[in-house]
């Protein structure tokens, strides 16, 4: 009836609770205080009493959970589930969302200190990861066939993921590149724009010509490019924009507009 885990933790819990009462009475507790947790009288020294009783209650709570779940004994679980053997968890497919999620949390943490925009970016990443993670977890348990699960997941998520990812990459690339262009000199910005264009073209050609690309090379390239663009963008943001010298405004440029201000 009572499992080993229950007996172990309940024994610890009772010993601690008894110890708390004993400690309470020996350190100045009076009347029913130590027995009633201070309701009817003093409990003596607060720290020791609270610590012992708190740990005791925690141990007894664990004991109750253990007896309820039969020490999580696999045979008992299988019996209650009505199956011969409880399902194993070896069907969890590989996923890069945990890593993305970790970077999202990291971005939130850094953004908390440095800039609200970084925090919001991290928050958005975490939101996306939460949805993707849920979908992966659902798909993993959809059928007993990993290939079918993967196909099912992609059929639901790919129409959303691919456009969203494309838009996000384009937006991030444009934003980071624009910061770099604004921070570098005129000539430098031309060079940067040229290099970025050639890179985009080169990668596109690579993708078009090679139908099978080594996943490690792909992952490394994406990681490198993302870090380079982000670091460049952050450094450029911190550095600030270069000095711009606007054209002098000549009155004859605005003849006929009837306005003294610019456009």
């Amino acid at each position: 009836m009572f499992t080993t885990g229950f007996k172990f933790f309940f024994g610890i819990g009772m010993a601690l609770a008894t110890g708390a009462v004993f400690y309470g009475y020996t350190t100045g507790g009076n009347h029913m205080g130590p027995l009633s947790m201070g309701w009817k009288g003093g409990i003596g020294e607060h720290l020791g009493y609270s610590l012992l009783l708190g740990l005791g209650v925690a141990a007894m709570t664990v004991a109750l959970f253990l007896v309820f779940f039969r020490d999580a004994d696999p045979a008992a679980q299988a019996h209650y589930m009505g199956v011969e053997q409880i399902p194993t968890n070896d069907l969890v497919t590989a996923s890069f969302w945990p890593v993305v999620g970790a970077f999202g949390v990291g971005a939130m943490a850094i953004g908390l200190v440095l800039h609200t925009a970084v925090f919001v970016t991290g928050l958005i990443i975490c939101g996306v990861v939460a949805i993707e993670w849920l979908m992966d977890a659902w798909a993993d348990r959809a059928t007993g066939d990993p290939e079918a699960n993967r196909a099912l997941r992609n059929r639901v998520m790919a129409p959303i993921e691919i456009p969203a990812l494309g838009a996000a990459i384009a937006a991030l690339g444009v934003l980071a590149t624009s910061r770099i262009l604004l921070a570098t000199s005129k000539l430098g910005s031309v060079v940067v724009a040229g290099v970025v264009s050639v890179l985009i073209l080169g990668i596109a050609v690579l993708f078009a010509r090679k139908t099978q690309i080594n996943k490690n090379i792909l992952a490394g390239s994406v990681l490198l490019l993302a870090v380079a663009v982000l670091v460049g963008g952050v450094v450029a943001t911190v550095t600030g924009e270069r000095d711009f010298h606007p054209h002098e405004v000549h009155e004859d440029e605005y003849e006929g507009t009837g306005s003294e201000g610019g456009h």
Partner: protein
Amino acid sequence: MTMTDSPPAADTALAATSPRVVGLFDALTTTDHKRIGRLWLRAGLLGLLAATLVGVVLTIENSNSSPDDVFGGVNNYFQYLSLHRFGLVLLVAAPLFVGLATVVVPMQVGATNIAFPRAAHGAVWLFMIGAVITVVSVLSGGGWGALDGVNGTERDAIALTLVGTGLVIVSLLAASVCVATTVVSLRTSGMNLMRVPLFAWSMLVATGVWLLTLPVALSNLVLVYFDLRGGPGTFGDAQGSDAIYSQIAWLVEQPQIYAFAIPVLGVLGTIAPVVAKRRHAQHVIAVALIGLFGLLSVGGWSQPWFQGSNYDEKFVFIVFGLFAAVPVLGSIGAAADTIVGRASAGDPDSDASAGGESGLAGLSSVHGLGAIGAALLLLAGTVAGLARVIQPWDLGDRTTVTSVMNLVLFSAVAAAIAGIWFWAPKIAGHELAVSTGRLVMLDIVAGAVLLGGADFVSGFLEAPAFGYRVVGSSASLMAEPSNQSLIEVLNVVGAIGAVLIALGVLGVFAAMAKAMRSSEVVDDNPYGGQTLEWTTSSPPPPGNFSEPPGRVVSEAPLLDTVNENGEEA
């Protein structure tokens, strides 16, 4: 869209249907616990290398008379000292044990993977991000406070240190949930809690204590962060104060420091029977003692925020300090009983008794040396902790505190390295060099004894806990002690200990590099292990076992003879 409601078949191996990709892509996407564990171990070993090198510089600096020699001032010294202390706990000891547990525990309990493998994978990357933010921010002028007050430019860097530390703690909590859940709910048939291998049990206790206490540290950090960013400035703006450090200093002091060494007893309890080639003589007692040690290592309540500056004079704190050595001593006694006590008793499961051996021969193995050395270091640490709570000696502000920390943490390091040597066939599929391993173990244990022993004696000579005598500096922590010359000699001894430890750590990397080049085939069970991880191949396949382990009827399944009905023959 067609779906089935039936659960997947247990013998469906994912590896059979999808091609295995190794390398960076796998590191970024894996859900295999062995790969995740290796990431933790690499991170922990890198942290260990950095921490020991910083430790060498700190002890060398400590034996000089000027604060400007290496660090350029007492404030920088304080930053590196606090980085070294928190780093040893959060970036070295904890990740090393989490890594070992992530690889070994699922196999020990007969599971095909760790519980919540994606969360476990996310945790290791979050740990790395948090660790990088912490270290970089400290190097950029941050840290856990500033002795000369927090000025405008330091404020952001200190805030980043707090945030990075918080991320590290969150990642350790997530990993703890995965490890604890694996032990609680993924055990194989017949493995009740009393039959769980001692290392897995110790990790359950350790992660339980971490889950209880590390959120308190997280709360401390949040409190300090908000105070620093827009609050009254209670902690940050105090001129010449270590107020921020003091808020989480309980993490590196007793009793909490013991929580990071709980698995030392598990490693000892797992390796001792293997060394002795017989069952653990006192398995049930060992289980209870590990639980008791976990109970006595619950910290968080012993801090100035709750108890005031005299928290270490409270009765409960003293009781915890007095009794912490008892379960350690008991565990060592139980291991000794296993190794030497039963040779003449004719134990039917014993290989050694049949051959007339006492089991002592196995102590010369790397894992045997490491497990015993680590346990003795832990015993020394808890005894030093016992001395620290004896009020008439008044050692609370002395280097005795540092001594406890160093002895306990390097016992954890020694145990983790012994575990890496022991489980190397399962972690990476090869054995590590025995001769190098013995040197590594001797280096680390001897170094820790010198380092911790010197601090322990210095404490009685009134050497301050921060170990620094400020000459000509604007910031001063404590007055110069009277026995200065003797303390300086002891500081040199401590520096020698730190150098020995660093050499040992370099030896670990050398052994690993050598093993990676080796193409030698490793036996499935080269040391005569008694638990389920030794029933699978080296390295284990995806899913760990080619077929599900049979019903377990004792804590040492490989010594059991079980019939087809799962009953002991």
